[in-house]
């Protein structure tokens, strides 16, 4: 009788079990489960969690981290690492702010200039890695220091505030969601489409999987890496401009620590440090976990100091669960 009951149970839930199994097999499986768990716990703990305003806030707060994580995912997929997105974000922020405040150039020129400078920072990272053959950890560490320094020099160490109204459109809302969220969605979709459906995307995966073989088959691996680093620089620049809009100020220190959120989101989202495995979608969900967790801890009135510790623990646990599937570590 008991056995029969048991199979009855399985039959009843077979469909949901098979979905669960499929999710479990995905590279993004762990992050999906963590995210669902976090949302359930949050909504149980705080009645405000599912309120329209709170959801809107989370989706706005996640936007910048998600875009930085997307750029980070590109670089990690090729087998590298980028420590500079936070500093590049700061630099682009004060640059565009300065151009808007101190010159008569139109806002769109300031934005384009910022995007160009960010991309150039990324390209410089790429050139250091491919041409000068500096390991990406060191090359981007140098960029992290230099870009932060340039941001401080340019802003003379102080914030640049209050921007023209045409710029502040970026901080507005369209119906229930913010423009920042819309920019994020567009960036994520483009990033994932490039990875999944273009030759460049295929080569990014191949370079991270087996760089030598990819080179042997006639793929210009250096070009692939230059693209990935430049794209990451572009993402950091987009983040810098969004940060300006959100704060209506540009602080030369604003990006500090963001590289950790970017790397953390990507790794949480299943992007493998050995390269070649992972997705922009996963990095986005990783960013969402970090943001939602911060939101929950805020709702619980946990001090920001403890939040860092909690983030660290979550990241370590995530890395542990993900590394079980890896056959070898580089």
């Amino acid at each position, binding site marked *: 009788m008991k056995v029969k009951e048991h199979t009855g149970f399985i039959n009843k839930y077979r469909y949901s079990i098979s979905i669960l199994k499929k999710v479990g097999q995905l590279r993004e499986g762990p992050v999906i489960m963590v995210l669902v768990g976090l949302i359930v716990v949050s909504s149980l703990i705080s009645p405000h969690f599912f309120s329209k305003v709170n959801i809107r806030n989370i989706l706005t707060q996640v936007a910048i981290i998600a875009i930085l994580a997307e750029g980070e995912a590109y670089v990690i997929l090729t087998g590298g690492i980028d420590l500079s997105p936070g500093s590049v974000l700061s630099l682009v922020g004060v640059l565009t702010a300065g151009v808007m405040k101190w010159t008569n150039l139109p806002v769109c020129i300031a934005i384009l200039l910022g995007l160009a400078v960010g991309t150039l920072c990324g390209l410089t990272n790429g050139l250091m890695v491919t041409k000068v053959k500096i390991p990406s950890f060191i090359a981007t560490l140098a960029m992290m220091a230099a870009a932060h320094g340039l941001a401080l020099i340019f802003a003379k160490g102080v914030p640049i505030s209050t921007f023209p109204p045409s710029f502040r459109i970026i901080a507005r809302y369209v119906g229930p969601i913010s423009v920042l969220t819309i920019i994020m969605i567009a960036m994520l979709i483009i990033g994932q489409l490039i990875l999944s459906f273009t*030759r460049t995307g*295929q080569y990014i995966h*191949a370079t991270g999987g*087996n760089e030598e073989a*990819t080179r*042997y*088959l*006639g793929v210009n691996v250096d070009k692939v890496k230059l693209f990935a680093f430049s794209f990451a620089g572009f993402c950091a620049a987009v983040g810098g401009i969004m940060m300006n809009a959100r704060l209506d100020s540009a602080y030369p220190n604003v990006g500090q620590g963001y590289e950790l959120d970017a790397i953390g989101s990507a790794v949480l989202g299943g992007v493998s440090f050995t390269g070649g495995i992972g997705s922009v979608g996963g990095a986005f969900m990783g960013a969402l976990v970090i943001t939602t967790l911060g939101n929950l801890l805020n709702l619980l009135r946990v001090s920001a100091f403890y939040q860092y510790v909690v983030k660290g623990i979550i990241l370590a646990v995530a890395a542990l669960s993900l590394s079980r599937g890896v056959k070898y570590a580089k």
Partner: protein
Amino acid sequence: MEDIPLVEMRKISKSFGMVKALQAVDLKLYHNEVLGLVGDNAAGKSTLVKILSGVYAPDEGEIFIEGKKVNFTSPADSRKLGIEMIYQDLALVPNLSIAGNIFLGREPVKNLLGMRILDKKRMFEESREIITKLGIDVESTKIKSENLSGGQRQTVAVGRAVFFKPRVVIMDEPTAALSVKGIKRVLELIKELRERGISIIFISHRLPNIFAVADRIVILRAGRRVGDRITRDTAPEEIIELMVGISQDNES
């Protein structure tokens, strides 16, 4: 006409730092020929064929394809001229699918609103055709190559080399890691490729395998070419002597 070699490498030299890997090596490969390339470890076999496949640029020397001088700056250049190489470690990308590996560097694309996107359907179908023809049966060509057995991986590497109708296929130690049965299959494949008009450079340290299929044997020793023999006019003993450098007048 037939006198013009398909591939001619003239006076190829290559050094890595202080190590002279190749010194003025000549190599000719004729149409419809299986050339065995033998030599002891570090004799320069792999370096020589990697120069032909465009991985390394030679320090000195010239390469001619059907009498025309060529200059390879990347493996893409040599592949364009129909030279394919099956690498010793197979050069597969573990996280790419079978199809992704077979088409790596030459993915078919289709036009979608002015953007060039991968023609995945064609990749999956055509790669399936080629590996089925080569005699392995997998559920799907979407399977990642890291999940394949050794024999299946080799078939994917072979499939990649023959798919684009090459004129020359270079095989670097294709039998090194294989069972007796696997070796037999590779040797049959070599004969089959020659019947289809493809010339082959076959590197192996197993002389019986070389003697089973090669028309001609070139012997390298310490970066120099020390012999060029028609297979039916020589014997394994002579080849070994040339490989290790024991000549008749060498005593004690």
